[in-house]
């Protein structure tokens, strides 16, 4: 168990399905996930921008 590795952490029982709502995740965890997912989306946006630039350059040379 994790408690053996780390005395300051606490073991909790697993949540049942109906506990989501009355019990909720940590705000730090949600902000962390939000930033991670947003970072992933912005990387996709950047990739599209660079693909657009590459394709435009190709077109100019192809025409």
């Amino acid at each position, binding site marked *: 168990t994790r408690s053996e590795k780390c005395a300051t952490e606490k073991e909790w029982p697993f949540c049942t399905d109906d506990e989501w709502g009355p*019990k*909720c995740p940590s705000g730090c*965890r*949600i902000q962390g996930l939000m930033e991670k*997912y947003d970072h992933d*989306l912005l990387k996709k946006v950047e*990739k*599209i921008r660079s*693909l657009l630039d590459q394709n435009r350059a190709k077109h100019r040379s192809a025409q």
Partner: protein
Amino acid sequence: FLLASVQAQIRGDNLASCSQNDGFGKYCPTTCGVADYMFRYLPGVTTDLMDMERSLEIIANMTTDTE
């Protein structure tokens, strides 16, 4: 106008929070509510971005083929 303003107050339009003056301060969404919102919003934009990327890759291949 008054009724519209009353309705707006009931709906809580344009407020980041609502308060019930019950001694518990301002009310906010729960982190569950924010997480649910996030997982509803992410798939759509992710799909949109991946579709565009795929289009651009197809275009790149077409351009290569015609060279």
